[in-house]
């Protein structure tokens, strides 16, 4: 199934936002203004001096802007230069063939390396804030809640995430441990974000979106790169990468990174004791075995140490049953991936990919070791004049071994799961260059719910070169997770917590092996237009119809437990079931406006409405509240400016609506980065994050009792040196 993503990946290679390109950092100016720099200003007192500078600045600025409106200043005729010189010239873009975001029949956006670099984000999770339409909330120093089109949670489970073809979505809870996702950010080529179902290609769990993190090939990361920095929240970080040629046709890189992040704070301003640090290293080898055969081998390994205060169930304490434990737990993991691509003809290729992935997490409330082995095969070929067919097969084996505690237990404590999948997709040119229909489906067999079929139909209409409209209908499912089937999660409700005078209560959520997949039927519409070279708009609207969403019902599970109740506490057994259904709808609008060569603005707005309903007879009290965990309105505005002398200024302003179910107020935050390149290979950057408040809360933990933390304003400095 992973393999499907490679195809999509390749398709997306073309899908650079057409405006995100060519921004010339070196600027051309017409002659008359050159003299201004040397003109002496009379000394007439500081205020006057400043005023005159302001005036001069405004004049220069305006003249400069108007100068830019005219045809580009001609420089010396390049056609006169010898070809050897031309080969040495550097052009103002580093992005590869830009284009074709416009040709995707889905709500796709791409976060480029440039976006990541310029925004000053320090983690993959944070980088996702740059994609329009995603919900990205920081729960505390190390936990994130990330989703698309609703259902956000620290354990959000409807988003599929892949890194270089490897799924980082854990079957443990059908979500992502964001704290252990990373790489050298400078080596990321782009992050593709697909909002809406991608299940026909990517398989179960690509329900509300797919995130695909793609690193650069070793060929594109040659030489040495050193980064280092530190500040108030990002206490210290450093990275080193070295890339070289092994032979004429083979390239490699190795990297190592480290960071140490500061505590977040509690609502009262005290430390939340959740600081953490992590080291990671990895390598990548790209070998052009021949013109038609490419081999990639890559791997990463990490080790981190995370502070966290867990609320634990303590059966030995027969009065409170509860204890807050300051934990310092370890996360360890690694993976190794190999991929072979062979080109059969210009329009046909075949790929095989296999990987092994291991993760370990050792907390005071839960321990897990997981091994995953995955192999995928994919073949693309044209059929007749108008059909482009892709099909693939995949197999994944995942095996876990958990260490149970009174707070969380999985029964049984070890399980091996198999996933068999196949997919077929045909892209049909109904009217060449105008109308394209993509039909496809994924067929899977998993150990929880058996066979799942997830078809999709997408129609793309390109009436003119600068306009596209698309529509789609797709079905996707979210298969149950290991936890939902087998968990016994004990939560303690303190005395008086249920009603005035209530005794201490222990609520145990039991997994349910009869749980069914959550199902989605999604209807989407999209429109993109580039009315002028400098301006583009991207609109997407959706209506999602969900069924069999998970609920937490009162009573014992039909397949788990019952366990004896804890003596001396009120016992509330609960279990997972599928008694929720609902509709969500929304609109995502994003624009790019290249005001001048050196200034770009990117506003984005997202509207979301969720309506969830319990089936008659459901005793669930919490799942409908998911409606209030995703913001109705989100707005972001990014501004990227390039000044001469290689100074750049980037601002990101974001507004997130309130989350009533979590008592989170709406907030506006500002991130700012100013960078200067004194020499070509060296960059100095100053970054301020969450500048508008001392601290603010973005989300609340769910299921697992960790503290309710708030995110502080932060500053850091960073040096980047390439040689």
């Amino acid at each position: 199934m992973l393999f499907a993503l490679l195809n999509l990946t390749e398709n997306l290679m073309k899908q650079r936002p057409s405006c995100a390109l060519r921004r010339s950092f070196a600027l051309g100016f017409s002659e008359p203004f050159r003299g201004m720099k040397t003109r002496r200003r009379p000394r007439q007192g500081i205020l006057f001096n400043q005023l005159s500078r302001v005036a001069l600045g405004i004049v220069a600025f305006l003249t400069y802007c108007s100068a830019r409106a005219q045809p580009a200043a001609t420089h010396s005729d390049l056609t006169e230069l010898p070809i050897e010189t031309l080969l040495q010239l550097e052009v103002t873009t580093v992005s590869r063939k830009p284009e074709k975001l416009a040709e995707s029949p889905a709500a796709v956006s791409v976060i480029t390396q440039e976006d990541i670099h310029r925004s000053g984000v320090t983690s993959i999770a944070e980088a996702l804030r740059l994609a329009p339409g995603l919900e990205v909330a920081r729960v505390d120093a190390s936990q994130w809640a990330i989703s698309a089109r609703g259902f956000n949670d620290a354990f959000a489970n409807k988003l599929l995430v892949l890194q270089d073809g490897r799924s980082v979505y854990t079957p443990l809870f059908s979500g992502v441990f964001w704290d252990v996702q990373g790489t050298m950010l400078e080596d990321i080529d782009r992050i593709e974000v697909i909002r809406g179902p991608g299940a026909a290609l990517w398989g179960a769990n690509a329900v509300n979106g797919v995130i695909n993190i793609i690193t650069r090939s070793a060929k594109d990361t040659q030489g040495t790169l050193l980064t280092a920095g530190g500040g108030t929240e990002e206490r210290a970080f450093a990275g080193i990468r070295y890339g070289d040629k092994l032979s004429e046709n083979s390239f490699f890189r190795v990297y190592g990174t480290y960071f140490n992040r500061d505590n977040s704070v509690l609502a009262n301003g005290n430390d939340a004791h959740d600081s953490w640090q992590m080291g990671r290293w990895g390598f990548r080898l790209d070998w052009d075995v021949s013109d038609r055969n490419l081999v990639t081998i890559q791997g990463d390994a990490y080790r981190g140490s995370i502070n966290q205060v867990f609320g634990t169930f303590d059966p030995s304490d027969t009065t409170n049953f509860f204890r807050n434990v300051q934990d310092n737990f370890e996360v360890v993991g690694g993976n190794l991936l190999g991929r072979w691509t062979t080109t059969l003809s210009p329009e046909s290729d075949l790929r095989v990919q296999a990987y092994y992935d291991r993760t370990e997490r050792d907390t005071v409330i839960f321990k897990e070791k997981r091994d995953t082995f995955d192999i995928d095969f994919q073949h693309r070929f044209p059929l007749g004049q108008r059909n482009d067919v892709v099909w693939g097969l995949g197999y994944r084996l995942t095996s876990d071994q958990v260490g149970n505690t009174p707070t969380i237990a999985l029964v049984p404590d070890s399980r091996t799961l198999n996933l068999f999948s196949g997919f077929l997709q045909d892209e049909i040119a109904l009217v060449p260059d105008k109308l394209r229909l993509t039909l496809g489906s994924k067929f899977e067999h998993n150990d929880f719910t058996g066979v799942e079929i997830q078809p999709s139909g997408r129609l793309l209409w390109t009436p003119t070169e600068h306009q596209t409209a698309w529509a789609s209908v797709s079905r996707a499912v979210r298969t149950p997770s290991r936890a939902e089937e087998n968990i016994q999660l004990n939560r303690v409700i303190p005395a008086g917590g249920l009603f005035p005078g209530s005794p201490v209560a222990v609520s145990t959520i039991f997994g349910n092996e009869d749980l069914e997949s959550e199902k989605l039927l999604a209807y989407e519409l999209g429109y993109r237009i580039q009315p002028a070279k400098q301006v583009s708009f991207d609109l997407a609207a959706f209506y999602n119809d969900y069924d069999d969403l998970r609920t937490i019902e009162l009573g014992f599970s039909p397949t788990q437990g019952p366990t004896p109740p804890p003596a001396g506490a009120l016992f509330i057994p609960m279990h997972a079931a599928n008694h929720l259904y609902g509709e969500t709808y929304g609109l995502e609008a994003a624009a790019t406006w290249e005001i001048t060569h050196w200034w770009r603005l990117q506003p984005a707005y997202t509207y979301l409405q969720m309506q969830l309903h319990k089936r008659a007879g459901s005793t669930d009290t919490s799942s409908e509240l998911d409606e209030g965990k995703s913001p109705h309105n989100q707005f972001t505005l990014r501004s990227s400016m390039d000044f001469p002398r290689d100074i750049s200024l980037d601002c990101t302003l974001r507004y997130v609506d309130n989350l009533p179910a979590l008592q989170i107020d709406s907030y506006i935050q500002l991130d700012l980065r100013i960078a200067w390149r004194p020499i070509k290979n060296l960059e100095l950057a100053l970054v301020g994050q969450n500048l508008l408040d001392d601290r603010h809360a973005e989300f609340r933990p769910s299921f697992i009792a960790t503290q309710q933390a708030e995110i502080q304003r932060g500053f850091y400095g960073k040096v980047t040196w390439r040689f």
Partner: protein
Amino acid sequence: MRRKPFFELLTCFALLAPSVLSAEEPQPSEYELKAVFLYNFAKFVEWPQESFASPTAPFTVGVVGQSPFGGELDRTAQNKTLNGHPLAIKYVRTLSEIRACHILFICASERKRLADILKSASAGNVLTVAETDRFLQAGGMIRFVMEGNKVRFDINDEAAKNAGLHISSKLLSVARHVETAGAK
């Protein structure tokens, strides 16, 4: 007196703006440079006499697909001649127009039609240029490749020879990679 942030910001602009004016020679854009390379290819490749209707017939650079050049190609071609042939840019709409071109730039939008385009090109003496992956393997002649932010190119000399074109050793020597007859 404390200055207001807005005032500071303006001052900041003011300080930066004048220095704007002293910036050096601008760097060319990617496609501005690629347009110049196309012109250079015309200089370093020999076309057979019969590919020109007359000694003053235009030298035609064709572009098929959604051009990434903007106005750069036309700007580069302005008032240029090659051995007496005025340089002309032609935006090709149908396959039948291809054989009349001397150089044909095949835009990335035409990836799907590549085989048809190359087939049409093989009917004339057309130097085919593109920047799509595996273009040379498909029978194309010159492929642009970006190395960092420098423009490079690979050449399939065998394909050029088959089309009756002679690529000068000078151009071959500066190419990143050359495929010659025999090598596959």
